[in-house]
């Protein structure tokens, strides 16, 4: 299955934007903006910073567009790889992991009643904090699959992993999130 971003016409718009067509680039931007912004917000947890980083992603996309090769990574995977690299750079510079301390897990947990689990409502801040308890790869898979809307195949290409490995990471990530949402500790070595 193709990711939800793989709409007909996107490749054509990208090709026009590569020729310097601003209008085409604006359409590509419209198509991707929400997902890139959500990705950044869930990575950094602060709207103002997410806005800055989103802007930086599109600046880099615009600047590097002429070098993009359609036969390499799918365009959206290429954009989210730029986004990922930007976040990595940002954390490297700041020397922080960007995750909530582990001892806050219980305060972030939702209802302990399984009956209420189905209706558990998350807000973005809490989701950001929960994602901080996953491994970097699990977090990447969750963000690329559920925020960027990419398929397993696209996610695997973006992360340079095998599809089977992505499926395993996805399974582990959802299992860990489920445990965190229900207030259960993560098994040793799984977080």
């Amino acid at each position, binding site marked *: *299955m193709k990711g*939800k971003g793989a709409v007909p016409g996107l490749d054509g718009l990208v090709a026009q934007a590569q020729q*310097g*067509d*601003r*209008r085409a*680039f*604006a359409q590509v*931007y*419209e198509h991707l*903006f*929400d997902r890139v*912004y*959500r990705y950044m*917000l*869930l990575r950094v947890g602060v709207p*103002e910073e997410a*806005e*800055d980083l*989103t*802007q*930086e992603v*599109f*600046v880099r996309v*615009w600047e590097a567009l002429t070098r993009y090769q359609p036969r390499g990574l799918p365009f959206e995977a290429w954009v989210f790889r730029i986004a990922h690299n930007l976040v990595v750079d940002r954390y490297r510079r700041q020397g922080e992991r960007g995750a909530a301390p582990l001892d806050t897990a219980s305060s972030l947990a939702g209802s302990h009643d399984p009956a209420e*689990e*189905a209706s*558990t*409502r*998350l*807000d*973005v801040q809490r*989701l950001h904090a929960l994602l901080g308890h996953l491994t970097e790869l699990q977090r990447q898979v*969750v963000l690329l*699959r*559920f*925020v960027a*809307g990419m*398929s*397993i195949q696209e996610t695997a290409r973006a992360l340079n992993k095998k599809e089977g490995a992505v*499926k*395993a990471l*996805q*399974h582990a990530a*959802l*299992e860990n*999130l*489920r445990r965190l*949402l229900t207030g259960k500790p993560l098994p040793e070595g799984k977080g």
Partner: protein
Amino acid sequence: MTREQEIREALSACLDRLLAGATVEECLRLYPSLARDLEPLLRTASTLLQTTASVSPTPEVRARVLANVLAGGQERRPRGRRGVLGWRPWMLAPLAAALLGVAVWGVSGAAAQSLPGDPLYPVKTWQERITLTLTPSPGGKARLAATLGQRRAQEAERLLARGEGGKELEALLDRMALHAHQAASYWARIPGDDPSRGPALGPGPRARPLPPGLARKEAVRQEVRRMLQEMVASQDPRWQEIVRRAPPGRRPALERAYQQWREEVYKALRSLE
């Protein structure tokens, strides 16, 4: 295939369906023997999807980021307490004013007179970008962007007078379109908009003096709108003629750039109505 692998495969297929809009129940019906294992994971995924979908940046954020991206990312989101390089806006004001003077009323020496294709032209546009970045108020940025649009039009005239202008003309039209877009976007960022007041400066018994914020915004609106209108009046017929006379090989690209500029400038004018 082990049961764990079976669950992973089914989970993956179900998540694709959830992403495409299916419900958890619809997915579970496809895998009755695995439903007990899949259900909690799919409910978690569904919650996650609902939460992320609820994040929706405002149209202002969307427009502001695009304007900045097309301007080369030079103009950053306005910060509440700290501005560029962590300086407070009032610290930047004198520097911005000095650069504004330099950029708008004559860049030092030869760079100011340079045209696209000249070695010093990048210096001139770099100074302009810096000035735009350091101009502290959105109103000042809007005026400057409109001024820069006029400057690009003058550069095109000078190129044509020298009998030059191939790809440079398209690039100038692209820049004119960008500056029109910037002018309207920066204007929209001026605080003080209050839609509940109805049309600003509207006639009739409801009209009342504008608060200072709105009055400033209105003044910028009128000035920027006038500049853009003058530009359309002088440039539109001129560019039609330039496109018509262009060599056949160059005409499609020039026509595209011209149409793009017209769209942007009329869009900017509509947003300034």
